[in-house]
Structures are given as structure tokens and as C-alpha cells.
């Protein structure tokens, strides 16, 4: 049992990263006026077919064959929390397209866990797979916050020299090649 909703988010989003998602969108909305808290985790990973989906929603099932001791409780725990707090739980998945997990809760419900340290969850996910784009949309009645891990990461990658292709090699190799191409095209020009 998790004490914070942000731990549920971390757990479910780790599945997304395992499913080779390039983009993980996490939407958290806290609408006090409607007494509704919704969490949606949407990825573009490899998805699941209907059979697998049915199996993972049953308790104690995991698709991770490599680990004999895997438990497979992540989604079941989130469903339990959602249903306990007067909300709903839904998983939609299409093979090769991705998976969307949605859980809602009544904000005022006495069993509704606190959201907790959402920052730590997002930072952990960023560290888990630096190549993936982890996005957070946080909505309340009056405010909207958006975060994407891809913006800083891409700038960083662009300025990084490629270790497998140093400038020196390029100098020795490239000019001869381009000259040759130029000669050929010049010869082609003469012939024409």
C-alpha cells in the first residue's frame, strides 16, 4: 500500500518506461469545486493486447517473465486506492500505440491519500530514462502548470561533441572525399 499518490504515479510510470515509451504524459488535476482528483498516465510504449490487459488487471500478475519473484501489484494497488476513495479506474491499451491509465478519486474522501512529493517522482522518472520525454500537466481550479523534461535535455545533447567522430578524423577524411566528388561533378560538367 502506498502512502502517497505520487508513489502510485511513479510505479505506473515506471511500467511505461519499461514498455519503451518515448513520451510519458502525467496529468494530475485537482478540482476542489467538483470534488475530483484525477490522475492520468499516458505513454506511447508498446502497449498490450486485450488478453494481456485482462491478466494484468487481475491481482498478482506480471508480464515480466525475466523475474521469477516479480509481484505485479502496481495497477491493482492503484485500482484499490481509486475505488476505496469513491472514484474510478480505467486502463486503455492498444498494441504498438501505447497505454493510458486513468484513476479518479473524491478529493474530500477520508481515505484519499495526499499527493505527496510529486517533484521527487518526476525527477526519479527523468533519471530513470534520460532519453524519454517526461511531461507533467498539473491542473487546479485556477492554475495550470506544465513541465517537459525534453526541453533542457535536447539543448544539452545538441551541444555535446560526438565521441565517436572527433574533429581530427573528420579533417583527414572528409576533404579528400568531397574533392573527389567535386572533381567528378566538374568532369561531368565538362562532358555536358
Amino acid at each position, binding site marked *: 500500500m502506498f502512502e502517497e499518490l505520487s508513489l502510485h504515479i511513479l510505479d505506473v510510470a515506471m511500467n511505461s518506461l519499461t514498455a519503451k515509451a518515448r513520451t510519458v504524459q502525467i496529468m494530475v488535476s485537482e478540482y476542489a469545486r467538483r470534488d475530483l482528483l484525477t490522475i492520468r498516465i499516458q505513454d506511447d510504449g508498446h502497449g498490450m493486447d486485450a488478453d494481456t490487459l485482462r491478466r494484468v488487471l487481475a491481482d498478482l500478475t506480471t508480464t515480466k517473465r525475466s523475474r521469477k519473484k516479480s509481484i505485479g501489484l502496481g495497477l491493482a494497488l492503484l485500482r484499490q486506492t481509486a475505488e476505496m476513495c469513491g472514484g474510478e479506474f480505467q486502463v486503455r491499451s492498444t498494441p504498438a500505440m501505447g497505454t493510458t491509465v486513468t484513476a479518479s478519486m473524491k478529493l474530500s474522501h477520508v481515505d484519499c491519500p495526499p499527493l*505527496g512529493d510529486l517533484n521527487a517522482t518526476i525527477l526519479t522518472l527523468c533519471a530513470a530514462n534520460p532519453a524519454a520525454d517526461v511531461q507533467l500537466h498539473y491542473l487546479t481550479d485556477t492554475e495550470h502548470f506544465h513541465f517537459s523534461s525534453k526541453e533542457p535535455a535536447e539543448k544539452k545533447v545538441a551541444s555535446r561533441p560526438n565521441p565517436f567522430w572527433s574533429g581530427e578524423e573528420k579533417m583527414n577524411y572528409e576533404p579528400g572525399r568531397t574533392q573527389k566528388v567535386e572533381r567528378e561533378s566538374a568532369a561531368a560538367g565538362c562532358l555536358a
Partner: protein
Amino acid sequence: MNLEELKKLKEKAQRQVALREGNKKYRVVVSMGTSGIAAGAREVMKTMLDEIEKRGLEDVEVRVTGEVGLEDVEPVIRVEEAGGEKTTYARLDAEKAKKIVAEHLEKGKKVDNLAVGKEKKPE
């Protein structure tokens, strides 16, 4: 949860991405499966990232893995050295994580009383 806290997230994520690039001497792998998370792996991870940043250790990268089959002693981390040597630490919390950063990652001295299992020497 408030928006001010979330705004700090952006700067922090940028700094941590910058810290993680390139080949490092140490790689820390945190077990972040369901059981790890339930036992407090996220706090261990957060503490390690903060502590590594605070001490300015540039030769360390922190990664994440799923369940490692040590559910009963979670949270578990594995410290891998560039030479191939691996050390597994178990039953961690924030304080122990700080100690590992200070001893193993900064001074290169293993914390024997937190390590579990047999040492895997490079072949």
C-alpha cells in the same frame, strides 16, 4: 503540492540531466519496482541525487531498474565501478544513502556493514 514547488522542478531537472552525461567512474542503480517504491526507494534516490550534487561529485551517474529479486530487503541499490566491481547495498534509508555517497562514491571506501551478498570481482 503547490505551484511554487513545481516551478523549482524545472531548474532541478536541468541540473540533474547535466550531471548524468558521459562515462562515469561509478554507476548507482536503484531498484525502483513496486516493492522498492513501497519501501522508500524514491526517497533514497532523491537523497542520493541531492547529496551527489551537494558534494559536487561529477564521476557518478544514477540510474533506475525494476525489481531485482531482493524484495524482502528493499530499498536496494547497486554500485557498479568502471572496473566491473559491483556492490549491493540493502535495507537503506536517507541517512544510509548519505553515508554511501560520502564513503563509497566520494572516498572510494565500501560501507561493509550495509553491503549484502558476495562481492562480484571482475573476471
